[in-house]
């Protein structure tokens, strides 16, 4: 076996042009710059959005039809305005849960299983940029479906549309919380099938706990409902359908959503780091 002798540090003097500068004495080459957080986030966001546009449009239709279908079904059993509010707001947020939680968990599970994380791990990019970029893209992708669902729901149940602008706050906050959770589950699951399963279960939880009126639930299930981050988005939206909304409570609900969003995105970033450096 031929073992090549270690080259002397002194040889480092002759550097071809463009090969990276050296500090003169030390043997180490200058490192190429890191990608900064915001530009990298923007690049990932843009790429993910275009990716999602190609691959996920049919699924967005599914998500919207599913929510509209649920509202049509519930129309027969709902007998009070309060319940109608819960159904419409739950169904609207369900679109977010479907895309941001379920699909993102699947995406990151697939990325991890297929070795796709290597691509990002060998680029000088902050893990937060990858997670936030993907989460943001998936969350923005839910906008049309959520708006359509809310409008159809207001029509079906004769709810006021005046305060629907609150969706502009509910969507990004619930989106952040749910997509952070989805990314976290997808990155943490040891196998791709488990990631898919977690995403599906999370979405089912958002469906059952969000759409059904809370008053009819057993206490234990009520606690589970309180733990689910999308609940606060549902509550906030539901309150704005009241004739005189309690804006303080709406703000509090959105605050919880934001806090959970920050937490789940931080966890997802941690999970990304962990998954990428096996």
């Amino acid at each position, binding site marked *: *076996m*031929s*073992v*090549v*002798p*270690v*080259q002397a540090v002194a*040889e*480092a003097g*002759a*550097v*071809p*042009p*463009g*090969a*990276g500068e050296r500090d003169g004495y*030390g*043997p*180490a*080459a200058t*490192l*190429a*710059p*890191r*990608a*900064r957080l915001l*530009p*990298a986030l*923007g*690049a*990932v966001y*843009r*790429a993910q959005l*275009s*990716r999602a546009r*190609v*691959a996920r449009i049919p699924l967005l239709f599914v998500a919207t039809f599913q929510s509209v279908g649920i509202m049509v079904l519930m129309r027969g059993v709902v007998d009070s305005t309060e319940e109608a509010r819960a159904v419409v707001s739950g169904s609207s947020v369900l679109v977010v849960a479907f895309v941001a939680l379920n699909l993102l968990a699947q995406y990151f599970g*697939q*990325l991890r299983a*297929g*070795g*796709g*994380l*290597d*691509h*990002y*791990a*060998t*680029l*000088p*990019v902050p893990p937060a*940029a990858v997670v936030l970029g993907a989460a943001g893209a998936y969350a923005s992708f839910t906008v049309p479906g959520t708006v359509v669902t809310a409008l159809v729901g207001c029509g079906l149940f004769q709810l006021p549309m005046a305060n629907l602008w609150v969706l502009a706050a509910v969507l990004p906050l619930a989106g952040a919380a749910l997509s952070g959770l989805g990314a976290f589950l997808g990155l943490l699951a*040891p196998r791709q099938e488990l990631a898919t399963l977690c995403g599906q279960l999370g979405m089912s939880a958002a469906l059952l706990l969000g759409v059904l009126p809370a008053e009819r639930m057993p206490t234990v299930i009520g606690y589970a409902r309180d733990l689910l981050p999308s609940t606060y988005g549902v509550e906030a939206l539901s309150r704005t359908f009241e004739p005189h909304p309690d804006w303080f409570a709406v703000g509090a609900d959105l605050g919880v959503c934001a806090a959970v969003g920050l937490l789940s995105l931080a966890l997802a970033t941690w999970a990304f780091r962990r998954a*990428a*450096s*096996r």
Partner: protein
Amino acid sequence: MRTGAKQADRGETVCAVRDLVKTYPAMRGRRGAAQAPAVRASDGITLDVHRGEIFGLLGPNGAGKSTLVRQLTGLLRPDAGSVRILGHDVVRHPERAARLLGYLGQESTALDEMTVSLAVETTGRLRGLDPRRARAERDAILGELGLEELAGRPLKKLSGGQRRLACFATVLTGERPLLVLDEPTTGMDPVARRAVWAAVDRRRAERGATVLLVTHNVLEAESVLDRVAVIDRGQLIACDTPGGLKERVSDEVRLELVWRDRPPLDVPEVAALRSAARASGRRWTLRLPADEARAAVAAVTSGAAFAALDDFTLATPSLEDVYLALGGRSEGLVKA
């Protein structure tokens, strides 16, 4: 054929690997039942790659080549040993690897649903380029590799070779002094292969770029590599220029015989060759000293043996012969 001339003008060491050890538990699940025997995927590997070299890691699938490069790129932490890339310790600082080298892995999952153009541009942005520069590099690289026509198509819709070429394009953005390419030309047609090697040569000639290449293709290894490390079962069994390696078996030649139907074992000369031959279907491969090979050719090109012979070739040794002579397993090496 290349000679050892390249060895004379070695530049500084770009990548220095010392006593690298990585062991995989055979069952990779952490909570699994009793683990099967562990696999030593890197078993005390030491090597140096010099500036401007195209350095190859040759071995069949499962030899430990990819495990080795994953440790060099900071993706995998070795159990023991050191890796220095351009003077940086990437075992202690794996995150620095991304700022020193461009890596082409075997998977394209992260890019599959993007268009070729967006994949290259985004990768450039994530290597720290500003938007204008990323777009300019994207255009230049797509032009250089002849990918303009495919620029608007998602990678998923491309053929295996085209997709590989698109992934190779992403490695070239945000120029790095070291390129680590894990089987870059898999599935490519000759045109795409030429584009890859031309792009590599250009970067080497103009910017002194260094290339570390993983391959299991012996013909490619012979034609493009300056030096090659032969890997088998996690160990480096030889490291030299392709020419230097072949000199080790230069007293032998390779004789390939293809029989029409079945070998005429009733001919005594053919029966005598039987034990030395590696048979694969109708094809026999023999490595023989030159004089014995001549005698064997004389025997099979006359009489009953010739009637049963479909084709034969006599060739000087290839890297595959070197590999076998060094004790490597032959399965998995590709000649194409």
